């Protein structure tokens, strides 16, 4: 951690900000310069990218049938009040 260089530990803390495009131009440059020359941190960023990819393959649960039915009943009640 000398002068303007980012340490690997800092890189690890900043991965999400980097992927969110939330780093300042200067920080982004320092970040990218670091990972260009550091296998460990390059692997780290890749791990996060693949983690996001895995998570993106999940689908959300479904509502249970009773809950769904109750909601539909509520909807129909609302429609009646509106004369629909």
């Amino acid at each position, binding site marked *: *951690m*000398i002068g303007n260089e980012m*340490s*690997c*530990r*800092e890189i*690890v*803390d900043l*991965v*999400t*900000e980097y992927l*969110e495009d*939330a780093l300042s131009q200067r920080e982004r440059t320092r970040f990218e310069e670091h990972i260009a020359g*550091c*296998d*460990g*941190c390059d*692997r*780290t960023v*890749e*791990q*996060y990218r*693949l*983690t*996001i990819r*895995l*998570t*993106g*393959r*999940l*689908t*959300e*649960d*479904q*509502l249970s049938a009773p*809950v*769904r039915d*109750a*909601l*539909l009943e*509520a*909807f*129909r009640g*609302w*429609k009646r009040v*509106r004369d*629909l």
Partner: protein
Amino acid sequence: MCRVGTQAAIEESALVERLRAGDEATFLELIDRLGPTMLRVAKMYVSSAAVAEEVVQDAWLGVLRGIDRFEGRASLRTWVLRIVTNIAKTRGKREGRSVPFATLSGAEDEPTWDPSAFTQHGEGSGGSWASMPVDWSGIPEDRLLAEESMSVVQGAIAGLPPMQAAVLRLRDVMGWSSQEVRNALELSETNQRVLLHRARAGVRRAVNDYLETGTSG
């Protein structure tokens, strides 16, 4: 970027119109799309799954009663999530339930990567890798994307503090934008990002532990 946004806005506008006109298929589509998320959010604030279901019901009634006034300034799904968040919080307070921030969001000072993986001060330049992260790009796709990996991811998310899980699901599972998540869950930009970072770190660690057991040596 504008075209995608406009297309989504047009579709949403049509959906709102159909809802106002009492179209059941539209309502069912909406509750299928948003209901599970609403339930998870409600559960963060109230005492039981049963109460959470009541909260979700109340929220949908709130949506229907307010649908004529919905102006589309926020996305529909953001608006719906805000409604359930507010009702859940109110209900939670009425139940006398106050969940500590750290329980919902996780401890603030917990490191997202094992500190022993880095060199300490005095060992050359501190903060460098003492043990190299695994190279995931060397793992065959069919292993990385296998059912077992996916259930490790599921398990990891289920074990996250609820607010971290909520942000992660909305952003990375459901693809909501950072702004939508902030609006829906009433989080600052920093807050949202920290929660997202911690959540992803938790999942990454679980997946890494799982993958490493097959790639040791």
